[in-house]
């Protein structure tokens, strides 16, 4: 890709993710700032925070005190979850995807059942292509080990005629690059 060579991976990621109907913002790696960003963008309602896998857990402390935050992992609570916050262990510049480990804590549920998914992505973990995740020398070979999902924009369907965003998975995806 000629442009991406001259563009930083973060810029390229932002461009592709936006094209895939996600929203992206860059925030300092600071608990208060991350929580403020979540509060700014997320709608009111029950909010679940999954234990991060890559980023230090204290980075999410302030989020756990936002209005609506809950810890009950009951079926009902999960189903009603309006906002889900997880970390993402990788981003992909070409496709604008994020990689979320679905097997760690509740990240799998939170990133799937909530209406609005907010993912916090460390900027240094953005790779160029999806295929990079399957190389041993990329991110410690984690893409070869983890149970994860490439998430590219919100869930969508064209089965009902026109393109509709928001089906079984989240209706919106917001990526906070730290």
């Amino acid at each position: 890709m000629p442009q991406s060579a001259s563009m930083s991976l973060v810029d390229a990621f932002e461009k592709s993710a936006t094209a895939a109907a996600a929203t992206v913002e860059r925030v300092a790696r600071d608990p208060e700032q991350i929580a403020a960003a979540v509060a700014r963008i997320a709608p009111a309602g029950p909010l679940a925070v999954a234990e991060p896998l890559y980023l230090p857990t204290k980075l999410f402390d302030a989020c756990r005190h936002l209005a609506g935050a809950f810890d009950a992992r009951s079926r009902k609570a999960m189903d009603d979850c309006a906002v889900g916050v997880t970390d993402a262990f990788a981003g992909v510049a070409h496709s604008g995807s994020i990689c979320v480990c679905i097997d760690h804590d509740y990240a799998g549920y939170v990133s799937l059942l909530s209406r609005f998914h907010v993912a916090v992505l460390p900027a240094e973990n953005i790779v160029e292509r999806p295929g990079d995740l399957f190389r041993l020398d990329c991110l410690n070979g984690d893409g070869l080990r983890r149970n994860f999902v490439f998430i590219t924009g919100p869930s969508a369907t064209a089965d009902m005629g026109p393109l509709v965003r928001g089906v079984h998975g989240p209706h919106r995806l917001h990526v906070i690059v730290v």
Partner: protein
Amino acid sequence: MPAPAPAPESPRAVANKSSKRTLLAAIKMALRIESSAVRHNTQTFNRNRYSATGALSDYDRLKDRARAIKERAIANIPELLATLEASVTQNGGHFFLAKDAAEATRYIADVCSRAGVRLVVKGKSMTSEEVGLNRVLQARGIEVAETDLAEFILQVADEQPSHIIAPAIHYSRERITALFKSRFKTDLPLDSGEELTRFAREHLRQKFLAADAGISGANLIAADSGSIVLVESEGNIRMTSLLPPLHIAIAGVEKVLPSRADFAPFLELLAASGTGQKLSSYTSIITPPLHAVPVLTNSDAAPRREFHLVLVDNGRMTMRQDPVLHEALYCIRCSACLNSCANFQTVGGHAFGGETYSGGIGGSWEAGTRSLDAARFNELCTGCSRCVSQCPVRIDVPFLNSTLRQRLNRRDAGKIAQLFSTVLADGSRDPVDAAPLQKLFFGRYDLFGKWGSLLAPLSNWLNAIPLTRSLMEKFVGLDRRRELPPFAKPTLVEAWRQPPASPALAAVEPPSTAVQPAARAVLFADIFTNYGSPSRGLATLKVFQSLGIDVVVSETCADGRAPLSQGLIAIAAEQARRTAELLRRYIKDDRDIVVIEPSVLAMFHLDYRRLLADAEGQLLFQILRDHSFDAMEYLWSFMQGVGLNPAMLFPASRHPLGTRLFYHSHCQQKTVGSALATEALLRAAGFDVATSRVECCGMAGSFGYKKEYYDLSMAVGQDLFQQVAEAEADGPRVLVATGTSCHEQLAAGLKRNVLYPTELLAALVPKPESQNRKPAASHA
């Protein structure tokens, strides 16, 4: 007793295409009910694919890697299955290899019964359709909820899939609204995509939360780790594989790759080639059973997760031994060959498909997993070759279909046809090419052309009278509404041998013998040009000679295209060898091969690789491929090479027909990459060129001449006719087309004259008396 005619409105009634009657009923049904939604949706996929694959800078390299991995994997299936079984078991899962549909469904039903399953949520899986899983589970009293929205629609409507990745592609929004309103008896507003999606989401959410088991397919499987890839956009497959404590994945044995690292090239290829995205919304890479605690269970005690991987043979291991059909096992079910197919775009998979699989590749899959008879819909593959360059694993889909046709021909050939088959074998001693009369007629066009031209004008007069037409329709299925191009007298070769008799050639000033020609070429007198439209060849000679190109005309020789398209592969191979040997003599004499008819050029560039299979043949194929060119492509590269300016030599502004053109390139010409040169040259000459955007005109060689496909062929042509109309909104344009059949189709649909590109240029070649510039070659 003949079976009662199936109700034409019901897709299920026409799903099994074992009889031709059902195939024709399905086409009728699809044209009437499903065509507009299918057309809109497949063409959207098609456009998106072109832009997504265009954005992959290493597209060709990815395809090569993917193809190499699949070749290795299919060659090693037995070993890979053993490795995979060990991996899955070690991960704590269960592995089952089912030899057929009955074994697969029984195993899954038993697992569900043992676990006390009452409700299963399912993600889209073509393999589960193939084995008929839902019926078996339901017979055990288990409720099955299809959760992919398209599958949900089909479950409500009780229809089979019409597309391999978008199974309800034949449903318009309006028809879904009507369906839901009548089945769910609801007063909710369901008049937009959003409302319908919300309705289905709420309905299925309850199922997800209550399900005891989830059943998914698997797009790819890694033997070394037991990892699977699940591609989707709605989130239902993630639900299916994460929420219920019991997860069963079912897939064909061909999905297994050696290692997880091998997933790399496939993810982007699948998304780009299918929906035309960079990646689908969700591409899960998991090694089940998962470890995440199942929180959404009905009981408080978190049960252990259980995972079963069910791999299905069901004919695949036999396909693997098949010298031709084994290639179908490389298929990653991306649907590019469906979306890039003009016939598929017009009728969809309920006509161009069987009970499970559809489109160009679908025939091989139905033949492999069901029966050869069930693959009869392969007839709708016209061999246009548009899918060949679109397939991410480089499967030669048209050749697979020619092979199916050959096998079906043998089954269909009646006694009389068998006799004719021997007479018409054209030197091929292979008895495999027995075929019905219609196939023989179209396959041996060279003979009919030869006799027709010999007997012209009598043959043309006969051809035009209603009695002959109705006889032809009755005996060989040539639609009486179609006109065969009149047989030429003289043929191209005859006209070349007696130049003075040919006014077209007489008008050209021969190149000065004092000048060393800058290029040496031979114009291949293909049978279509020679017997059907020599004017295209003569115009080409005139233009070439005006530039000082030393050009001669070859003898005529059947190249194999006609028999290949009818599944007469042995005859095609015989003709291919004869043609290649003939042309090799010219190549040895330092001449480039110039081809008028693009379907013949595609033989040289693509099909001869198959038809000339031995070592000597491969050599012939390579020589011919490297030395053969489309006439306009040759002209353009010659002019660029010696620095000739088309605007000076063929100034559009002086053209008696004006400068405005509509150019339609031929399907196979696009595939071999020779279409762009024509456009470039015409533009450089100053023409205002509007172009068609269709994959194929719909005539596709002999396809549109056949009585049973006339309506379909004309329906396909509508897009092209429409594009002409749009391009002419601001005034008329001269129609220019490269292929003979495109020519016929445009002429039939628009009742207009159509020119071959060199015919257009020939009108700008100065008459000898007024020609005072020196032969162009002296500029070189």
